[in-house]
């Protein structure tokens, strides 16, 4: 109850004209950076940071966090409309969001995404409100073995499912791991897999790979067909937006489950990207409409979006309470906190009550503002789908090129991006799954580091992964997710053999 009282006090701080205005500005700028691939929430927050030096800390964090919400929402827009994820964490949204938009239902796809995203964010904020002081203890229990177990769980829940040929899945996953290893090895400091190209020391950026694989690759697949985009109704139907939102509670179980996964991955620093992939994988495994996944299944949009936003929101919790940022953006914001003269950590909740609870209250309001603004801009984004393909195609190529370049001001990245485009086309054409490759590229090196650090701690003994309840549970859960489908399939086959012929 003490927390609720503090929250009400927070609302009195956040609900001023000045702060509402900052929320609007933050969300709008956030949507812009979210929509542009190559620019993401971390870049946007970094660029705004200098502007906040003269502000009150509460106002500053409200501006920055609202930009973060805007970017999370904006990232889903391009994923759904163009199959270009604006943010790493919205990759999983492309799997079903893009097919749905392509089939002539962009409004439904966007409304589903925004609705479930809002639910996920709300779940994250409620969690923060209720558990701000308690969570510090759980997160402190996380060492390298637990990190590895969480990543293992994320892989396990995603890999091995679906109808792709297993060997092709394996090759795709392994290529992702290899790409993640390119550059400087963070454990030993040695340079790996640069193939004699010095510039590759910086590694292969995830954004470059994704824009090539999804943006260019999909473009090449789409251009083969005579009819590119089906006729889409000439105006956005507001009733369709509301109908979609009203129907969301039908997916109540998926929403709750995805929010739980997201909150968990946000607090334990698995991060929004791993959360969205894991949630999508689990949704696909347990859904009764499995076959529909990848073809525009609403649950395939709800699962990653809810988890993404729940994780993005709850990632601020370990940052505030422990000083451990759960995502790249949270890390930039933590830098801001220190510049404003605040020390993140448990003491923040005691010494800076106004700041902490003002921020938490602004999360509720900021997400409401973000949902309203992004829904109002749906017609603008949906109108983009009606632009003829021969205009859109060069624009997508230009956006991918500029996006790849702006990641680290390197022309090599542009060339790599085009290479990934060809690879993406070949893989898509021949039914190699792209998702395992992307997931491994994003968290492969972190998983490897965590594994090697665990091995250092235990001097090479695998028993460290069974050394306490937390890590053992995680490992067994992961193993179960890998093995169970195989058993189910076997049982199904046996049952089919003994079933009486009808």
């Amino acid at each position: 109850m003490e927390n609720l009282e503090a929250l009400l006090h927070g609302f009195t701080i956040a609900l001023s004209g000045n702060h509402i205005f900052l929320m609007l500005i933050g969300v709008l700028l956030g949507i812009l950076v979210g929509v542009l691939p190559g620019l993401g929430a971390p870049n946007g927050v970094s660029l705004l940071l200098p502007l906040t030096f003269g502000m009150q800390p509460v106002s500053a964090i409200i501006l920055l966090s609202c930009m973060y919400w805007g970017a999370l929402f904006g990232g889903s827009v391009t994923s759904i409309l163009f199959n270009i994820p604006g943010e790493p964490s919205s990759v999983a949204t492309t799997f079903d969001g893009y097919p749905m938009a392509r089939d002539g239902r962009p409004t439904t796809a966007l409304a589903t995404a925004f609705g479930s995203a809002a639910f996920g964010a709300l779940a994250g904020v409620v969690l923060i409100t209720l558990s701000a002081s308690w969570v510090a203890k759980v997160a402190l229990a996380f060492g390298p073995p637990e990190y590895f177990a969480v990543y293992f769980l994320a892989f396990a829940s995603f890999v091995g499912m679906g109808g792709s040929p297993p060997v092709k899945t394996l090759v795709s996953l392994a290529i992702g791991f290899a790409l993640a290893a390119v550059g400087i090895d963070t454990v030993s400091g040695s340079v790996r897999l640069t193939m004699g190209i010095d510039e590759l020391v910086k590694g292969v950026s995830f954004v470059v790979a994704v824009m090539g694989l999804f943006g260019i690759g999909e473009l090449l697949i789409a251009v083969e067909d005579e009819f590119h985009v089906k006729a889409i109704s000439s105006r956005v139907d507001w009733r369709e937006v509301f109908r979609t939102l009203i129907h969301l509670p039908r997916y109540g179980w998926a929403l709750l489950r995805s929010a739980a996964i997201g909150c968990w991955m946000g607090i334990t620093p698995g991060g929004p990207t791993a959360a969205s992939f894991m949630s999508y994988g689990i949704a696909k495994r347990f859904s009764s409409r499995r076959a529909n996944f990848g073809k525009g299944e609403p649950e395939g949009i709800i699962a990653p979006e809810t988890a993404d936003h729940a994780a993005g929101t709850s990632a601020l919790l370990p940052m505030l309470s422990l000083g451990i940022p759960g995502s790249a953006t949270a890390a930039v914001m933590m830098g801001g906190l220190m510049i404003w003269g605040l020390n993140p950590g448990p003491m923040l909740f005691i010494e800076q009550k106004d700041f902490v609870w003002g921020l938490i209250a602004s999360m509720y309001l900021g997400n409401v503002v973000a949902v309203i603004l992004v829904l109002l801009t749906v017609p603008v984004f949906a109108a983009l789908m009606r632009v003829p393909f021969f205009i859109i195609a060069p624009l997508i190529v230009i956006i991918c090129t500029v996006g790849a370049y702006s990641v680290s001001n390197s022309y090599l990245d542009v060339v790599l991006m085009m290479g990934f485009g060809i690879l993406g086309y070949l893989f898509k054409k021949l039914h190699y799954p792209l998702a395992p490759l992307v997931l491994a590229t994003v968290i492969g090196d972190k998983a490897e580091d965590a594994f090697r650090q665990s091995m250092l701690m235990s001097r090479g003994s695998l028993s460290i992964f069974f050394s306490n309840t937390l890590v053992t549970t995680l490992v067994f859960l992961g193993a179960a997710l890998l093995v169970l489908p195989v058993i189910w399939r076997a049982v199904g086959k046996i049952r089919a053999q003994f079933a009486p012929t009808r």
Partner: protein
Amino acid sequence: MRIMVSRRSLETATALLTGAFGAAVVVSSYGNGIGWSSAGVDPGTFPFLVGLIILSGSIFNLAQGWLQAREVVLRPSELKRLGMLFIPAAVYVGIIPLIGIYAASAAYVFGALAWHRRGAFIFSGLAAIGTAVALYLIFELMFQISLPRGLLGDALGF
């Protein structure tokens, strides 16, 4: 020109591509050291194993792709459309070091629009200029990311 591409040749080409990458990873990471040393798991171990997986998986895919039926997956008309998208895009990326991203993007948009709407040169020209200006406003001014000007830009001092 009536070239057709079978699934068999596409599968073979892809498997050779991934196999070559796997082999490169194996060779390159072997140099980083594999196995266990006083500093823990050596840096090359993990990529080495991953490379082996890619290589053996590619060989499997190569064999399986070779055994598959020779159904045609790319007809001449599809190949033509693919080429009409990919070749200009590759040329666009290729000329960026020469004339910079602004001029290249404008030329690319102008070329693509003028080709599809023959005669609409004013529309295409406006769209081309609009693209370059939009890129400048968003990246150069708003987010302070300097896009490459190429050799042409250097020569003009832009």
